[in-house]
């Protein structure tokens, strides 16, 4: 919500661009501007502030009169340009557009420009949706284009991803989104939004029925493991992998344990790997899954505790209280040999 605003360079009322204050415009002579308060303003004012005050004084007067006309439509455009975060101005603009049965094509163009200059503003994105739903014949591809453009500049822009999800649902544009997420993951494998979007598409593209069928889960598991192999210390990829197996349970997929064991050879300090393996083992115990040759519940519990101990004491010390909690809980439920945890407890908090 907070912004740090650098005041733009001073602009004279008659500078290049020919900006004329509203109070000097003959076609606005019938309107009495409404100041925010009647007290004297400070003498020292930069011209830009004067332009801002002038526009908003006229805006206030017109809102009070609730004038809905082409000229007030233009006035709101000026006010929005000066302060696009003011949602009351947007609200008034929508009221005017509704009354005038405004040109939605033109409005889409206008909003597009404002979005590209103010990419993290709630109001502009909401307005875009409002206009898009009133534009007859729209098929939503322009929304994918616009969000694609914004995401090229800032691949994690929360508003853009939300707007994209809205457009995909509203206009039924599921088909090519999986490929889009793959493109973005390839550009930045740590893009959590892209991984989240991939899950969103897989889970929702079949309507009510979950899209996470066994075939999809198997294929997407390989997709995730491939990226994890290339960049193991990546929270998003591991999270995506967990999401695939949430309903069935990690232990239903021995491929996962096999992959982890192989990775452990080179990535013994990767906290996500250790945590994942511990969770796999815990799942085997919780659901009483059949175990591999040579393994017992005791040995599996012991391995899980060893992994949790490593996390608490070396690999993820900042969360050691969490790992100790999990270890204690697992030990209480399933037994196993508790490693000497004293060392973990007396280590100083700060490195």
């Amino acid at each position: 919500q907070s912004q740090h605003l650098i005041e733009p360079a001073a602009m004279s009322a008659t500078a290049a661009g020919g900006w004329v204050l509203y109070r000097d415009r003959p076609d606005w002579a019938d309107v009495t501007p409404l100041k925010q308060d009647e007290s004297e303003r400070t003498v020292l004012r930069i011209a830009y502030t004067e332009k801002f005050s002038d526009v908003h004084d006229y805006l206030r007067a017109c809102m009070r009169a609730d004038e809905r006309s082409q000229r007030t439509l233009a006035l709101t455009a000026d006010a929005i340009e000066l302060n696009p975060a003011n949602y009351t101005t947007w609200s008034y603009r929508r009221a005017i557009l509704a009354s005038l049965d405004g040109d939605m094509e033109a409005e889409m163009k206008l909003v597009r420009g404002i979005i590209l200059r103010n990419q993290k503003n709630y109001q502009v994105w909401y307005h875009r949706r409002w206009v898009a739903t009133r534009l007859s014949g729209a098929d939503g591809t322009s929304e994918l284009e616009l969000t694609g453009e914004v995401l090229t500049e800032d691949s994690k822009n929360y508003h853009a991803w939300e707007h994209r999800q809205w457009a995909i649902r509203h206009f039924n544009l599921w088909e090519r989104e999986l490929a889009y997420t793959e493109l973005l993951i390839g550009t930045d494998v740590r893009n959590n939004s892209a991984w989240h979007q991939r899950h969103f598409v897989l889970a929702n593209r079949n309507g009510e029925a979950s899209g996470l069928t066994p075939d999809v889960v198997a294929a997407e598991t390989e997709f995730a493991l491939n990226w994890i192999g290339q960049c193991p210390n990546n929270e998003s990829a591991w999270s995506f992998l967990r999401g695939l197996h949430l309903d069935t349970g990690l232990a239903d997929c021995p491929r996962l344990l096999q992959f982890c064991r192989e990775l452990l050879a080179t990535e013994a300090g990767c906290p996500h790997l250790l945590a994942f393996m511990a969770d796999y083992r815990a799942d085997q115990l919780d659901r009483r899954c059949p175990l591999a040759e040579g393994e017992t519940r005791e040995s599996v519990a012991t391995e899980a505790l060893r992994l949790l101990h490593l996390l608490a004491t070396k690999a993820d010390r900042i969360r050691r209280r969490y790992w100790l909690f999990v270890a204690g809980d697992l030990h209480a439920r399933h037994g196993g040999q508790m490693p000497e945890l004293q060392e973990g407890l007396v280590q100083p908090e700060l490195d």
Partner: protein
Amino acid sequence: TDISLPADAPKQLLPEKHADFLLQYCSSQDNYEYVMTEYLRMSGLYWTASALDLLGRLPDLRQRMDAAAFLRDCARPDGGYGPAPGHDSHLLYTLSAVQVALLFDLRDSLDAGAIAGFVRGLQRPDGSFQGDRWGEVDTRFSFCALAALFLLGLGDRLDDLVDARAAGDFVLTCANWDGGFGTRPGSESHSGQVYCCIGALSILGRLHELDVDRTALWLAERQLASGGLNGRPEKLPDVCYSWWVLASLAMLGRLSWISGERLLRFVCAAQDPEAGGIADRPGDLCDPFHTLFGLAGASLLRLGGDSLKAINPTFCLPVDCLDRHGLRLPLWTGD
């Protein structure tokens, strides 16, 4: 993705400086930023007043402004509040108005019935709340609606005033597989939204319906090596998340899952030792928003010493403010 703390960054909390900063900030009413942020003025007042109250310096602000007049001028015919005179009503600024009224002991000047009517009118059939008459839906607004009603003293009548069950059901549909919550169903998990969802469920007494450990772990994983907390995986730490994440963990009874000492070190480093105030991260410009949430986080950790009052994690108001108004929300023990 993380930052390093500058070696010469402040290592202690500087409460006196922050009080000076906050009081100075709201007296510079002609500066550009002040004018440009008129659209959130009520929230700005809440951030400033709440932070000053945590520091025990609210009387200094009360002397300088007529909060009662400001509240009156922001009340709208539909029962809601706008951020400043002449602005449309919105749930965000309605909650902030109620919070301001509590801080300034002006609760009696609020028309609880009118506000409740405004809130009720914004609920949709699926239980969600829109922010204003135009229809944007966001879990932030679910929290604003329920918190406003609770703070008006209507907490035991929620079922009469809104469809409380549907409100909670909608929030739960915004839960993601990773334990986090987003703006709307399907939206990416985000610390700010998690706070709003946990806060809403806390008011509704439905926290037990969550996979608490999974959500708490997602929150704990926001902490980076610098000690700061981020809003989403692989994003930079920001002081405001000290509040959103910490308050959420406190509501879930899992505050110990992050390192308080390391977080405090991060917050201290984000202070401006000369002018006071706290920024989003070390070296950046300070503002009341980050000053409040940095101090609120420090208070929650009980690492502010005697210089900070205790704070309530659901409402981000000093505990004594809630006590004074007879408002009590039992803190769920997390079992």
